[in-house]
């Protein structure tokens, strides 16, 4: 699969590694606000966040991730991707963003204009994942071509409205991976594509 790029946003500083910071409400709120603000400026729209819905989403995601975490070195890298996909699922289910004013100059061919809320959620998860795997594995995250494809976004929006779980599969697609469309939100530790890299990249504890 060819590699592409996505809107990268500088996330707030944290004395903790990103994988720890994102499991803290204070950083989660601050980083989400940063991304929403950036997306809003990029497309010329005003986007509001329902903090209560966002907090609900955080709790729901945290519980799921804590429950599913295999605590296995072998599948640790794969779980980073899966956890980010689960966050996208929770954000789409909770819908914390609301467009207060539409983009000043709408571009119907741009996914960010087509579905600004969904774009915020996706870009947030992609940036958190990218920052985490950069810290943990020294890996530079890219994205699949589909992130720019409007037809994929049509399908993304339609499918996730009917079944939020498909967000995990779409996220995999957007990050250049191979989605599991049958059981999109289940984490299979035996999946060979989830194996952690064997390189001894510096790791934070």
């Amino acid at each position: 699969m060819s590699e592409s790029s996505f809107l990268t946003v500088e996330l707030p500083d944290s004395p903790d590694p990103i994988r720890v910071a994102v499991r803290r409400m204070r950083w989660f709120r601050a980083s989400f606000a940063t991304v929403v603000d950036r997306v809003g400026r990029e497309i010329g729209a005003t986007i509001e966040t329902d903090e209560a819905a966002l907090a609900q989403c955080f709790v729901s995601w945290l519980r799921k991730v804590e429950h599913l975490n295999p605590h296995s070195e072998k599948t640790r890298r794969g779980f980073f991707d899966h956890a980010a996909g689960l966050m996208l699922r929770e954000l789409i289910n909770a819908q914390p963003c609301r467009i207060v004013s539409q983009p000043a100059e709408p571009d119907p061919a741009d996914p960010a204009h087509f579905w600004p809320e969904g774009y915020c959620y996706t870009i947030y998860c992609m940036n958190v994942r990218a920052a985490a795997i950069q810290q943990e594995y020294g890996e530079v995250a890219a994205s699949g071509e589909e992130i720019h494809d409007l037809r994929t976004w049509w399908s993304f929006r339609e499918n996730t409205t009917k079944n939020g779980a498909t967000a995990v599969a779409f996220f995999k697609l957007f990050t250049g991976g191979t989605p599991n469309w049958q059981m999109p939100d289940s984490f299979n530790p035996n999946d060979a594509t989830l194996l952690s890299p064997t390189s001894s990249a510096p790791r934070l504890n």
Partner: protein
Amino acid sequence: MPRHSDPGLPGALLLRDALRIVRHVAREGRDVVQHNTSKAGRPVEQIAGAAIAQVDRFAHGAEEVAHLMLGESGKVCLPATALQAGALNASAFAHAAYAALGHILRNLGAHSWLVSEVKSARAFESVRGTGDIERATALAISMRDHGAIAEARMDAGVPLAGQEAAQLAYFGLMLWMLADKSSDDAQEVLDAATALSLALRDDILNAQGDREAIAALLKEFRDHV
């Protein structure tokens, strides 16, 4: 309000509570009169207007005295070791809890509230135990039993009753006290604790008085504030 000074608590703490009660009653009284006369027609409204002006002056007077004597800054702070046995005295805890509970209640959508430092101090004094989760759990229950939040009135449209907001506020306060505050502004951490309490609303309200359930929730979320 106690009629005599309590030998176990400093006079300043009792005075602060007394002044806050006066201020609260004055504000509430003004609001009640305003609300009930606003639709009663011109003659009643005019008569009531004079009464409201009197009550308003009284409320402002109480406010001025409160600010002068209490030095209320609204700043929330508490040492990181607050929950360790013997690390903090009851008065210091009550003073910090007063500011923190007010901040939480405001964020939860309350427009007026009455928090008692005396009752918070008594709740703190009654708590035993050595572990921080154990102490936080006991303190949350004790504050509720002592009625540290005497009253909380919610804004119209807020889907939370005053009593429920009080439960969430006690939990949020404990979560804040347990959380690592070393690298962030204490108020930011308190806002995060409040958001967590609101998101855990059903769990917290179902756990009322259940020591094990409250302890489990505090343990589950203390590192995620």
